[in-house]
């Protein structure tokens, strides 16, 4: 198979504004990956699938990774006026790097028996900008896996045909695979659809509590 640099060059040539970047991997297996901008991720995926030299027709694995905000502390010497005298004082500077969520796709070719090419797409942040283009229209095999990522990480895949929670129940509000997820002390306390059922059931009770007699 071609080297990742060649694939990058050809992707950039055919998809304008793809913003491709090679992510190094220090592990002995050296499976490096391609990170692409989310705006053109769908086009890049289609190129990788349809290109006659790559034919990556098989999305083996799709998964999410959470990269929380990182805070790096740095000690800097600053000159300050203290009691009218200029002194050198040490100060700690905090640099906060915003985190993101990442979707990773492991692509292989069943037609040409080659691979993997690893595709990564990052969200803008972890709070509001959690939208990514869905690659399910390109590889149907990503359907349940993207639903799982949505469920456990909270990435919203635009263009997914049926984006519902896969493993947790409807109405659950958290994304348990996120690194900052706090496990509940009491699982029973979690609001469940059962509460809604109880709320609805109140409509069937008489307003005065049934003191007037009469038939139910």
């Amino acid at each position: 198979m071609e080297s990742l640099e060649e694939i990058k060059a050809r992707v950039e040539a055919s998809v304008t504004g793809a913003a491709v970047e090679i992510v190094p991997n220090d592990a002995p297996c050296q499976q490096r990956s391609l990170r692409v901008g989310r705006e053109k991720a769908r086009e890049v995926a289609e190129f990788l699938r349809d290109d006659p030299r790559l034919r990556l027709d098989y999305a083996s694995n799709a998964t999410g990774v959470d990269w929380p905000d990182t805070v790096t502390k740095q000690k800097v010497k600053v000159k300050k006026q203290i009691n009218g005298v200029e002194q050198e004082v040490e100060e700690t500077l905090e640099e906060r790097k915003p985190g993101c969520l990442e979707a990773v796709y492991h692509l292989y070719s069943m037609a040409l028996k080659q691979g993997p090419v690893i595709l990564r797409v990052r969200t803008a942040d972890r709070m509001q900008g959690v939208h990514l283009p869905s690659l399910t229209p390109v590889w149907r095999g990503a359907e349940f896996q993207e639903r799982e990522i949505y469920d456990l990480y909270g990435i919203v895949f635009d263009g997914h045909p049926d984006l519902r929670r896969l493993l947790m129940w409807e109405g659950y509000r958290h994304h348990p695979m996120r690194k900052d997820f706090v496990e509940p002390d009491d699982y029973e306390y979690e609001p469940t659809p059962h509460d809604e059922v109880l709320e609805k059931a109140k409509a069937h009770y008489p307003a005065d509590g049934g003191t007037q007699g009469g038939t139910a």
Partner: protein
Amino acid sequence: MGPQHPSTHGVFRMDVVLDGERIVKLKPVFGYLHRNHEKIAEATTYLGSMPYTDRLDYFCSITNNWAYALAVEKLAGLNVPERAEYIRIITAELTRLLNHTCLLGFLAQDMGALGTPLMYAFREREKILDLFEALTGARMMCNYMRFGGCRVDLPPGWIEQAARVVDGYPRFLEEFERLLTGNEILMARTQGVGILPAALAVNASITGPMLRASGVDYDLRKTDPYGIYGRFPFRVPLGAQGDVYDRLMIRLLEMGESIKILKQAIQELPGGPIVDPKAKLRAFKPKAGEAYGRIEAPKGELGFYLISDGSANPYRYRVRPPSLINLTILEDMCLGHTIADVVVILGSVDIVLGEVDR
């Protein structure tokens, strides 16, 4: 709808819309067995997750072990000694035999052949489980592989016993084939039912016997050989129609090929160490990086994706579950068929909910 398949006792159901007896819409519902295996694994050491992998596809704990060990070996750059490679192949192919055998029994049960075929299958399965128990101490939760090798060496007399089981297997397969495959009812229930076209199978990431029954030649033991599968000559059986009957036959034929591999491996088994001396059990901290390792498990491609941040716990631990992904096209296969066919089609997918929900 559900539960009706033996492996779905209360943990899997389908929302089905019917027009009379015909399926109009079918949505599988998951999550009843979800315990967030991946989150648990991120909170424990690399080795600590090994017994958890047994519980994924609890029929095939040894192949689960192997997939995880393979991913860690890629991540940490460990080698596996020759003898361990052979033991891995022997135990993994035995696992394939027992998985396929049970599946055929379950499938016959789904079609109404209550009891007899399943008990025949379970009789053979017990022989293999006896071997596993002698080797690992547990019938099903084997927890056998270690990074860079295996946990314990074969006990005395084990390989002779394994050879006897393998030698006796073709007789059982013949008997099973005579009982089932020419059966008129079985043919009527399976032929032309639940057809899966090859193009859809590839696009939907279907793997394992399901994929090969649709005629796609893709077996990781051949196309992306792991371990020492490259040394074993065997065929990859392919289906033509992609219906339930083909899926059933593929499994029968694959068992025949597994027996070939087993015979050769048992014959050639070398001596030597069973674990890489470089591999550490305690304080095992791979360098920062990531790896994706995958094997041809009996149910399809089982992959593990690991990201290490240099600490003793994996930063990210992902299981690529073949059972879940093979269900992607369940609706496509069932549309237009009757309720009774859904039972058979689901049975032919071969799922285990421990792996679907994780």
